[in-house]
């Protein structure tokens, strides 16, 4: 008997255990740490399911970016709690919230269980089309995201930008246009500065590499962009650079460049190719790379801006 099924079983038990701990833990910090570990283990689950693209995204977003986001949010909540401790929710409110949560979880569970056993997939079709007149990409995942499901992929980035707008809009009126607060209080530790100085250039290079090989191997715009975002966050935590001013035109243009370029090329597809969001076969690969380059830029900006929070206008985090 092979040892792999046993390891898979251990992995499943660990993932479910950590998921339960994330819900049960009373302390926000402990729950977030469990959630980060859960994300990293989930990446292993995706690898065992032979989905390295998803595993990369899960490790970068579930294990990395979301962790930073939640820890920062937890810290700010803790600071709020001290100043405005309201009355704890009553029993009825707790019961209603619990019932609603159960309803959502039940609906999701029902949807997952009632999926057809062999899920509809475009993968074989794309794998067959890749060498020929298809999207010209060796990695079927990237081909699906960029050529077969391009509208969804574009809207995904629009959602990210809407989230950034949502975060910005909770800032105080008089702070509008200013920069978000620095990610850490001064002065940063020498070790943090050293880590940022060495890791950020190396990580940026790896991020660009992951984006570039995404055409033919596991990787792609989101994974590469998330890694670049993490490197920018590290540089901001070490105070090597500060969050940009929200009013900056260049920042705003760069932020929307991904979906904007995607939309322009998609609209042009109606004239130069045969349909909205279609690529002319000869130009498919260069066009996709162009779109993805701007998508990487948008993602690498949007994620750290979510972590940096609303415009603050002071130096206090």
């Amino acid at each position: 008997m092979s040892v792999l099924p046993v390891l898979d079983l251990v992995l499943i038990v660990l993932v479910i255990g950590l998921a339960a701990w994330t819900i049960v833990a009373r302390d926000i910090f402990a729950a977030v740490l469990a959630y980060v570990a859960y994300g990293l283990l989930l990446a292993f689950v995706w690898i065992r399911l032979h989905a390295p693209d998803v595993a990369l995204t899960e490790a970068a977003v579930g294990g990395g970016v979301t962790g930073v986001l939640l820890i920062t949010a937890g810290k700010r909540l803790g600071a709020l709690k001290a100043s405005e401790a309201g009355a704890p929710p009553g029993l009825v409110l707790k019961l209603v919230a619990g019932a609603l949560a159960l309803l959502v979880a039940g609906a999701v569970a029902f949807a997952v269980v009632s999926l057809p056993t062999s899920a509809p997939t475009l993968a074989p079709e794309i794998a067959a089309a890749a060498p020929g007149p298809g999207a010209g990409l060796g990695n079927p995942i990237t081909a699906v995201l960029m050529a077969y499901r391009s509208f969804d992929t574009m809207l995904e980035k629009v959602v990210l930008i809407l989230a950034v707008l949502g975060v910005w809009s909770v800032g105080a009126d008089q702070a509008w246009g200013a920069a978000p607060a620095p990610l850490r209080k001064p002065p940063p530790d020498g070790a943090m500065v050293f880590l940022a100085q060495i890791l950020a250039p190396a990580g940026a290079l790896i991020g660009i590499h992951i984006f570039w090989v995404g055409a033919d191997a596991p990787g792609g715009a989101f994974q590469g962009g998330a890694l670049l975002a993490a490197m920018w966050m590290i540089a901001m935590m070490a105070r090597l650079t500060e969050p940009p001013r929200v009013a900056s035109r260049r920042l705003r243009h760069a932020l929307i460049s991904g979906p904007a370029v995607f939309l322009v090329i998609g609209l042009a597809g109606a004239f130069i190719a045969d349909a909205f969001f279609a690529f002319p076969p000869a130009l498919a690969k260069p066009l996709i790379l162009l779109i993805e380059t701007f998508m990487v830029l948008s993602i690498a900006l949007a994620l750290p801006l979510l972590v940096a929070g609303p415009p603050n206008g002071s130096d206090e985090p």
Partner: protein
Amino acid sequence: MSLLVDLFSLASIGAGVFFFVAGTVGLLRFPDSLTRLHVLSKADNLGLGLIVLGLMPRADSLLEALKLLVTWALVLLSGAATSQLIGRALRRGRK
């Protein structure tokens, strides 16, 4: 030749696994955060280094072997830096 490579990999990965197990036991059994930090960094640095050393001769290409080495170097860097950060935070907390 291939037997020699197999033996080398087995010995190296085995030694790496030993350090990870020792690190885990230390994490569970050691009395305070600083000693736990100490034992964990040994597991990460030495254990992963030995596993990478054992995997390198089995890589498909020189580039893949180098990628393994770079992975270890990155873990060394982040491990050393975060240990420093946690250690300093602990010392600040004690004062």
